[in-house]
């Protein structure tokens, strides 16, 4: 066990008593508070200083680009960022919002110098004074290191004079040693234009930093052809294959995508990946067949399951487990020969038992098909005896059933199948399976616990009668609690007694 406290979130009817109480207290004040205004509430909202709000507003107004008025008002209100108001104001009354209202004022330039005059940022004024583009420079005698430095400063700088391979590479090395990726890419763009690819690739192969920049650049501008050439040159066959495979993401039409995936099957992936690519192709192929068939069935309106539970989305391009769930939901009873049958999927894709059972259980429980659930866990041995078996453990079965709001009678059946007595009692208590709790206490000959549990059942109910009958039975057949069940008592008692938030702090060891 561990000694650290954590909080438990696993409580079903967690009452959050403290929180609820606070909420009640706060709510009781609401009438008093809400009498006159609803202003502050809105003011709490993100008002964004000019900086954040611009790019933000650009996003925000995307949806309603038609209504300009609204956008402007939003922007105006965002300017009321509270802390911003406390800043020393520039002497000019010029504000961003007035600017955005479109009042251009002569002499507004003044606001800038005003604003800058009292800050140490003075040194930025000359930079601002001239847009960077004006720093054009056609001088021809910059050394590689000067050129690179000027590039870093964003100045336009001709690279044309670097014509020998040696000059080009020196330029690249200077860029790399300065660490600025933007400059490295600028030089690479020049190199790509002025060197044939064999030479370019050859030189980059021994310059890994520059190589990574070129690969990223080619990915970004979408020069797939050159990228594949590069991978081929570098003998990175797996990356080559993956890069090709990745293109399927851009193909919307399912038939075309399927055909494309087919071209991926022979590519030099790792052995593991090869199997995945094959599965991907097969899965999409199946999905196309199932989708066509089911869309037809659904629109014909003759099939009960589709009438009762209309499909929420197409099954195309869904993951395998989702497809399995779908097939367990709509095609559970189909023969193994059909593509849409769950068993067929299980075999084709070698779905492990555990995963299959979890998925089938969730699907059948959702439909409240309790017989199917029962069959899922029933196995027959060679003598024809039936036995209950769950690869995921019956405690998980119970939880999944409960999540799908199974009735107590059903839950009870599976709680009883839980082997570990403590777990069984915990689950039975949690899900109010009274009979299981009572019977388990009886089997444990645990009188005290039974007594404690009496308060949990309804007054005058059959359960209460049952408990009373047990408690009044002769001592000989129903002795005092045994030493070894003491632990259980504590566990149950803590489950029964603890309330609400105290449980947040129950030991992590639980």
């Amino acid at each position, binding site marked *: 066990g561990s000694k*650290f*406290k*954590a*909080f*438990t*979130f696993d409580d079903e009817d967690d009452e959050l008593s*403290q*929180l609820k*109480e*606070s*909420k009640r*207290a*706060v*709510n009781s004040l609401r009438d008093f*508070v809400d009498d006159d205004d609803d202003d*502050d509430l809105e003011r*709490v*909202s*993100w*008002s964004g*200083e000019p*900086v*954040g709000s*611009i*790019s933000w*507003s*650009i996003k925000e*107004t995307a949806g309603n*680009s*038609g209504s300009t008025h609204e956008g402007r008002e939003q922007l105006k209100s965002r300017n009321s960022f509270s*802390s*911003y108001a*406390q*800043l020393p104001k*520039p002497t000019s009354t*010029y504000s961003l919002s007035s*600017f955005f209202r479109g009042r251009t004022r002569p002499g*507004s330039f003044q*606001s800038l110098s005003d604003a800058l005059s009292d800050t*140490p*940022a003075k*040194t*930025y004024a000359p930079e601002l004074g001239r*847009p*960077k*583009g004006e720093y054009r420079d056609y001088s021809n005698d910059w050394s590689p290191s000067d050129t690179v430095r000027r590039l870093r400063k964003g100045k336009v700088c001709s690279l044309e004079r670097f014509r020998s391979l040696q000059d080009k590479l020196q330029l690249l090395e200077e860029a790399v040693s300065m*660490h600025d*990726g*933007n400059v490295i*890419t*600028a030089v690479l763009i020049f190199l790509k234009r002025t060197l044939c690819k064999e030479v370019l690739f050859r030189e980059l192969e021994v310059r890994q930093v520059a190589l990574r920049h070129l690969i990223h650049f080619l990915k*970004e501008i*979408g020069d797939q052809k050159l990228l594949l050439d590069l991978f081929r040159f570098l003998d990175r066959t797996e990356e080559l294959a993956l890069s090709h495979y*990745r293109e399927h993401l851009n193909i919307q039409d399912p038939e075309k995508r399927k055909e494309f995936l087919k071209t991926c099957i022979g590519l030099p992936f790792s052995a593991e990946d090869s199997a995945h690519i094959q599965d991907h192709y097969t899965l999409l192929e199946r999905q196309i067949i199932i989708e066509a068939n089911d869309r037809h069935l659904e629109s014909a309106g003759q099939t009960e399951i589709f009438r009762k539970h209309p499909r929420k989305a197409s099954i195309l391009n869904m*993951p395998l*487990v989702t497809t399995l769930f779908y097939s367990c939901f709509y095609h559970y009873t189909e023969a193994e020969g059909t593509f849409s049958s769950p068993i067929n999927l299980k075999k084709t894709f070698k779905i492990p038992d*555990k995963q299959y059972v979890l998925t089938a259980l969730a699907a059948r429980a959702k439909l409240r098909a309790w017989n199917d659930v029962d069959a899922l866990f029933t196995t027959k041995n060679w003598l024809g005896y039936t036995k209950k078996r769950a690869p995921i453990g019956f405690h998980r079965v119970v939880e999944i059933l409960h999540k799908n709001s199974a009735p107590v009678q059903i839950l009870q059946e599976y709680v009883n199948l839980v082997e570990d007595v403590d777990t069984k009692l915990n689950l039975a208590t949690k899900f109010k399976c009274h009979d299981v709790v009572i019977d388990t206490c009886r089997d444990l000959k645990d009188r005290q616990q039974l007594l404690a549990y009496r308060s949990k059942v309804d007054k005058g109910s059959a359960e209460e009668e049952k408990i009373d009958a047990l408690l009044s039975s002769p001592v000989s057949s129903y002795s005092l609690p045994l030493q070894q069940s003491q632990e259980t008592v504590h566990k149950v008692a803590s489950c029964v007694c603890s309330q609400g*938030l105290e449980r*947040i702090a129950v030991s*992590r060891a639980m």
Partner: protein
Amino acid sequence: MAFPHRPDAPELPDFSMLKRLARDQLIYLLEQQHEVDKLYKVENKPALSSSEQLCFLVRPRIKNMRYIANLVNADKLAGRTRKYKVIFSPQKFYACEMVLEEEGIYGDVSCDEWAFSLLPLDVDLLSMELPEFFRDYFLEGDQRWINTVAQALHLLSTLYGSFPNCYGIGRCAKMSYELWRKLEEEEDGETKGRRPEIGHIFLLDRDMDFVTALCSQVVYEGLVDDTFRIKCGSVDFGPEVTSSDKSLKVLLNAEDKVFNEIRNEHFSNVFGFLSQKARNLQAQYDRRRGMDIKQMKNFVSQELKGLKQEHRLLSLHIGACESIMKKKTKQDFQELIKTEHALLEGFSIRESTSYIEEHIDRQVSPIESLRLMCLLSITENTDKAAGKITDAFSSLAKRSNFRAISKKLNLIPRVDGEYDLKVPRDMAYVFSGAYVPLSCRIIEQVLERRSWQGLDEVVRLLNCSEFAFTDMIKDDKASSESLRLILVVFLGGCTFSEISALRFLGREKGYRFIFLTTAVTNSARLMEAMSEVKA
């Protein structure tokens, strides 16, 4: 609750200056245009505007360039002439210009830069709002943002003086540091003579510690981020939280008095605090009974507004807690946390593996399953565990020596009895006492030693022997107060849990931490950044 800072804790620098600077720059850039009156999201759609000129404010991405090109070329086809201006933030990339040129619109559009890279999200938190930094650098190996980081650090030293003590670990940290130094040399003289306001700077690469970022968060702010996603310092609380029919955008920072007191708390403490707060509030309202007119007048004019504000905040955070509890209960959070702790501590691997297996089978959430597999993969130091599916990830986390590092740095506290989360004894409280965040432990150890001395083995295990550095710049002007201010720079993102842990450390030691991150991150964002997207 909400531990106060020590009386000798230093004051935080004033970051509002950054906001103003950015604002003024933008105003200046926009002033060159006339009458910007509509804002559109840049996307692949024709512009509805009938304006004579269009101005685009964009991140420097190829995709955005293509959108703009489509728009301009459509105008050209329609025989329409307009002026176009592209403002790149925080900077322009040559690859973008290349696309403009290829698309035949270079010269039709003019370009500018808005060097906005430091957004103060809170009094102690600056964000570069560059979530793409993580994927670009750590996955693709593209160093395009290193200059942006260096520029941001340069700006900070211009505004707040140079940093007398510099430490760092990680390849990106080292490169950023070197480029930053180069900038300082080039523009020598600007920072000289300024009294340093911040005594230490610590640069740390995200790949030093993936484990912490992959864990479920249990401090309030982290949980809110994991559950509702905090964006740019604000969160959208849906109707289930506001108990009304509308959603509410709420700013989460130190100005929210209720939030400020619970943000760093372990979630299990939050309820107690909120109910105490609710009772106090009730009592304060109750005081109005039995007041005479004059007292009532005072009450209404002086106290009521504050109480109302508090009331609103309180009901919001109570609503948020309820919603978190509901969601976490549904997710079997208890089991999940148990598995995570087992992975961190390195026991019951078989159980953890079968838990993860079932997690996949039940299709709980692909991102969550991946996260758990990555956690298993790093903590167990095996690429096989996660298999090909997390190829991207294992290429990042290769040769993780988590178990050895954990032992060396004592990341799993050995405690007798129970860990009292109400009175945290160490940074492990941010993970229920089960684990001290590795990133924060490294920072703590280096600050204690003022160097990497004695940490050679750890540095070696982190595969960072070449990339751990210390740089002391002798500066007599540094006040003792400034020497207790530490700027921590997370390259590739930091989580709210790490921020909380360091805030705790600061309170214990009388330091104060300031955070600069490329973006605030969490496990889900990390996994999403690594998954393959449509081109």
